[in-house]
């Protein structure tokens, strides 16, 4: 089988997953106890408004045709209208997706910047000071709520030493970048323990393997051994671990945005939850799931490009 064949097959796997995601998001409304429409409208509920909403969501139709209606709108880019702001959900999402994407990118960049040097240092100097640190700190780091870490960072670098803004997304490109540093660092700290650990393990495994012994026997330089044979072989597993973590990060942004008052998708989701704005919650959930699917797809493709064995089954 060829690489292209693998990629096509990987794309084909997306179909059932995506369908199932839409089904789950669609069914969310039916998990609401009682009549969803009146539950959503709360004190604003009047018989006319409830009936209107029922009609809009097709709640009085058979389930399958409800799903069909949902899908039909979805395919046409229609995620409904906010009950609270009376704006199309797609418009709201478009307004808010920027900070979230920037946070994701920044978090990934910081994670890589923290991971690669630390893991490489730990693996090449096994048992050394950095290695000990890399083994112990994650145990504590993982037990820490990410948002709490954010608060501590905020306290230190925005309140005590005011380098970065306390809240918001700033103005202009430099403002955006400055305001994204602390949130991105927060998520990087949350992820790095796992990525450092996995890259270190993978590198140690590679560096103690028989092919590295063989390579050293060739009398090529130690740097080439570490990079071409050690790092190169450790890369595919580390990339897949990073991918999984970016996927997690997509969800983590919800909380992090709240801490730093970033106007992203996560804070949109939370404010809609407080406002019981169901269509927005539904739409944002769908977008988040889509992001994760894309991240996973990218990871798999990247992995396949890095590892020649993937096409071979």
């Amino acid at each position, binding site marked *: 089988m060829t690489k292209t064949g693998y990629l096509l097959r990987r794309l084909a796997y997306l179909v059932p997953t995506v369908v199932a995601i839409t089904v789950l998001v669609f069914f969310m409304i039916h998990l609401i*106890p009682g009549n969803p429409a009146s539950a959503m409208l709360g004190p604003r509920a009047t018989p006319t408004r409830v009936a209107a909403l029922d009609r809009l969501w097709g709640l009085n139709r058979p389930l399958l045709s409800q799903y069909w209606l949902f899908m039909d709108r979805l395919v046409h880019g229609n995620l409904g209208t906010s009950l609270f702001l009376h704006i199309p959900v797609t418009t709201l999402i478009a307004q808010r997706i920027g900070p979230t994407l920037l946070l994701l990118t920044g978090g990934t960049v910081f994670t890589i910047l923290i991971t690669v040097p630390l893991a490489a240092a730990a693996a090449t100097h096994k048992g050394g000071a950095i290695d000990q640190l890399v083994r112990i700190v994650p145990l504590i780091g*993982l037990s820490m709520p990410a948002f709490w870490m954010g608060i501590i960072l905020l306290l230190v670098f925005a309140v005590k030493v005011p380098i970065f803004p306390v809240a918001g997304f700033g103005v202009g490109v430099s403002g955006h970048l400055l305001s994204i540093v602390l949130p991105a660092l927060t998520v990087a700290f949350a992820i790095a323990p796992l990525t450092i650990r996995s890259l270190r393990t993978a590198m140690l495994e590679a560096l103690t393997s028989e092919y590295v012994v063989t390579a050293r026997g060739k009398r090529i330089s130690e740097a080439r051994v570490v990079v071409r044979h050690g790092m190169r072989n450790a890369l595919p597993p580390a990339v897949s671990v990073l991918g999984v973590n970016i996927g997690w990060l997509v969800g983590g942004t919800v*909380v992090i945005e709240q801490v730093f008052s970033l106007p992203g998708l996560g804070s949109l989701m939370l404010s809609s939850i407080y406002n019981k704005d169901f269509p927005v919650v539904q739409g944002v959930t769908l977008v988040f799931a889509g992001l994760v699917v894309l991240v996973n797809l990218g990871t798999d493709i990247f992995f396949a490009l890095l590892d020649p064995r993937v096409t071979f089954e």
Partner: protein
Amino acid sequence: MNGGLKSDRRELVLDFGTTSGEQRRRFNRTLVAGVCVFGTMVVLSIFAPWVTNGAPIRQDLLNPLVGLSAAHPLGTDQLGRDIWARVVYGGRTDLHIACLAVLLPFILGTTLGCLAGYFGGWVDFVVMRLVEVVVAFPFYVLVIALVFVLGPGTRSIYIAITVVGWVSYARIVRGEVLVVKRQEYVLAARSGGLNRRRIIVRHVLPNVITQAIVFAMSDVVLDILVIVTLGYLGLGVPPPTPDWGQMISDGQAYITTNPSLSIIPGIAVMITGFGLSLIGDGLADVLRPE
């Protein structure tokens, strides 16, 4: 390509020192240290009424935000409530929910993973498709969305954690079962004419359950983090029941003047999680056969 390549972030915590054997000779110390740390938190929670003034929700509006004193070992919050009592009672709430919340996913995931792995075919197909769908959602997004539609409260937390959490157990156990079912002792049991139920219960399950138990230890940590996060977002245990997440959230307003309001409950979360992580590490070594 197999499903083993992609793995859940939650499962990654299993990689900690348990596979390499680096800490193997120190397993006793790790486990004992973990039990001591976590045990202290549990004992404090159980004996909360005796180790505190027993009034985590009693407001004393005349004495808000006071510092350390004999009456209030950690001071009071903005409503004059005793912080020490709130932290201990918060632990009581969160540990209670987390320990219970871990059971249902454990049972559900282990069962489904075991069946999927052992029988393969359509059972496996269905279970793995379900797993894939759940995994496609970002963890927190799905939990938050579920708590939203189900309405706040502990019942919703249990349901949300179960819906999201069983996946990890199912995948871990399924992976182990796929290995174990090809082991020759299972083949020998089949050849010996034992029925499937007996083989699964006696020959497969005891050899795969250890990984699930070890993961459950890390999962309690993750569940505590979920509960605290939900509390922080105001979607957790409804007030006035004390909860660490809500305490951090309430304290954030006073971050410039009284940072300890947010810091103390966070440290409590960290100590608990650290203890559980140590237990998980130690258990992984103890339970490993050989």
